[in-house]
């Protein structure tokens, strides 16, 4: 016969030996973990949505001159950082647009095709509209990030980025 009955092992008086988790404690922790997961998901999706729709302000930079870019022509500049290539396109005599040059599919550089008036990614045949950067064809999942261009006299300034 053991010194003490077996049930005493399940209900020890010493705090350090007590590993019993009550149903209420378990349920409470389950609910808390579920709530924390839900809150984290809401926070992540909200932040993501804000970042996608948000317009980011960066220091203004002069990127080109209207006299140096012919209608239908394009040139690469770097904005907002020195490792962020962007493409400036002159659509007509008055309109200038600029987009990030990184394709939203796998990051290959896009090029302007004047004959189709689109931005073309040669890696996987992706096409974006030159008007607003939306996807016209191919595998890219999102539109190109747009660079805000402001015309000041004959100078063209990049003032921000959308997307």
């Amino acid at each position, binding site marked *: 016969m053991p010194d003490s009955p077996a049930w005493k092992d399940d*209900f020890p*008086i*010493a*705090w*350090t030996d*007590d590993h*019993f988790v*009550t149903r*209420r*404690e378990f349920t409470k922790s389950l609910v808390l973990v579920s709530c924390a997961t839900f809150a984290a998901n809401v926070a992540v999706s909200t932040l993501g949505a804000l970042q996608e729709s948000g317009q980011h302000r960066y220091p203004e930079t002069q990127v080109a001159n209207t006299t140096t870019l012919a209608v239908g022509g394009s040139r690469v500049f770097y904005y907002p950082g020195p490792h962020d290539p962007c493409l400036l396109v002159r659509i007509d005599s008055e309109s200038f647009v600029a987009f990030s040059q990184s394709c939203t599919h796998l990051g290959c550089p896009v090029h302007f095709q004047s004959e189709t008036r689109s931005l073309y990614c040669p890696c996987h045949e992706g096409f974006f509209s030159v008007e607003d950067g939306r996807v016209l064809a191919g595998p890219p999942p999102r539109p190109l990030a747009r660079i805000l261009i402001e015309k000041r006299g004959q100078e063209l300034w990049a003032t921000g980025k959308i997307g």
Partner: protein
Amino acid sequence: MIDPQMEFFIDPSRCIGCQACYHACAECETHRGISMIHLEYVDRTESPQTVPVVCMHCEDPACAKVCPADAIKKTSDGVVQSALKPRCIGCSNCVLACPFGVPRYVMDFDQMMKCDMCYDRTSAGKRPMCATVCPSGALAYGSRDQIERQRQMQARNAFVFGPQIVRTKVQMMLPAEEGELEMDVEAFMQ
């Protein structure tokens, strides 16, 4: 963890019944305004002498042994804690079982509450609230060396209840010639 050098000493002969300990106990941060100490009159018709009653923190706590809800736990440093709120069912078994009459059933919370030696304080090296305010030294917290230097009485922690000896973490100051303290409960009840 409570410093093993530090012990709790009760000297009932020094109690002046001022109730400072009663009010200080309620001020302990974890007691939430409920005092877990009380004063007993030895014989109110004969004398105004009172005795402070705090948990003796038995080595083999009867309150925990009779708890059907497994709500009373003893820490590794020997302190018997108050009932765990999520487990206590308010049955009062512990109130009846304690040989020293310490646990109290608090109807407002439907829970037993008792002295936990201000565990939040003592485990951080501070004295229990009652011992900090007792003006006569009836409740004292310190090392045994310190107490023996200051007092003539001896600290004892064995109490005889019939055939059973209850040993406690808290020490009772008794005359030097006393050994184990005989508790004649039957005579007291008559």
